[in-house]
């Protein structure tokens, strides 16, 4: 049961900023009025950040990762989350096994 110091600092800082986002809405309450364009930008944050994180794997790692991503996207249109993950992982393992290197 080891907790490394930089890891602890990172986790605590993550916790502080997360809790701040959770309670600052309480302080704002009804006063927060975003225009529709600003609201669209804020709504786009979660998908934009998630896609930005995986962009290297989607487009800039190799043809296997890009192909597996395309198959996973197709799976995501019809399967629940866990099914999508299973299809994605099975595809990449298969591609790496069939065409190693």
């Amino acid at each position: 049961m080891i907790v490394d110091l930089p890891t602890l600092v990172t986790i605590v800082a993550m916790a502080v900023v997360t809790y701040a986002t959770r309670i600052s809405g309480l302080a704002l309450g009804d006063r927060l009025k975003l225009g529709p364009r600003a609201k669209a930008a804020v709504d786009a944050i979660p998908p934009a950040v998630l896609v930005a994180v995986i962009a290297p794997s989607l487009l800039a790692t190799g043809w296997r990762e890009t192909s597996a991503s395309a198959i996973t996207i197709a799976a995501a249109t019809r399967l629940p989350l866990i099914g999508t993950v299973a299809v994605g992982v099975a595809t990449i393992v298969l591609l790496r096994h069939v065409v190693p290197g």
Partner: protein
Amino acid sequence: MRPSGMSAGTSRSEALEGVVDIAPAAIAAVPIGLLFGALAASKGLSIAEVALMSALVCAGGAQFAIIELWTYPLAIGTLVASTALINLRHILMGASLAPKTGAFRPWQRLLTFYALVDETWAFGERRATARPLTPAYFGAMGATLWINWVTCSTLGAAAGSLLGDPRSIGADFAFTALFIGIVAALWRGRSTAVPVIAAAVAGALCYRLVGSPWHVMAGAAAGIAGAALAWRPDEAR
């Protein structure tokens, strides 16, 4: 002691209803928590560190995103900034729920909003349309999800640390697949397509030209800007 209509008995039944309402979301989060723990262990976190992160941060989307970026030595600034960015939506959720917490004492607001996550927010909003939201109901939902998330991710870390090389079982790609699945669940048509494509292209370009972890900020900025620029007044929102 308590306002009328808030006796211990009703608090108990409110809490029970909260647990029952949130149970399907908690069950759905079991494999997600196990997966998070296993991936975190594959990145070098100890079981204690995984438990601590889930207990203190308790934000699945942000935890998955930063674990993908987790390499030693830690880029603490990027990890914390990414966490903040992904969790900015809590501000909007909290602001919308705040006027419905009239039955909460200040400390009850501060305590129960610790577990303000997408699911508790959605059920809290739904509850408030039918009857006053109580701290017992909202707090019981939060506590259920929190215990579930900490337990499952810790178990996942314990199991994952036994699995060995994550690449051989495709665990490195599990993030990509998981995020594709989450984005599909958030999909709202054109208003999602524009930021997603902008984030993917800008993120990949920045990754090639500048390097990790800058692709996260570049992709996120491109996606957010794309959404703002592409917004049209006729969009049904």
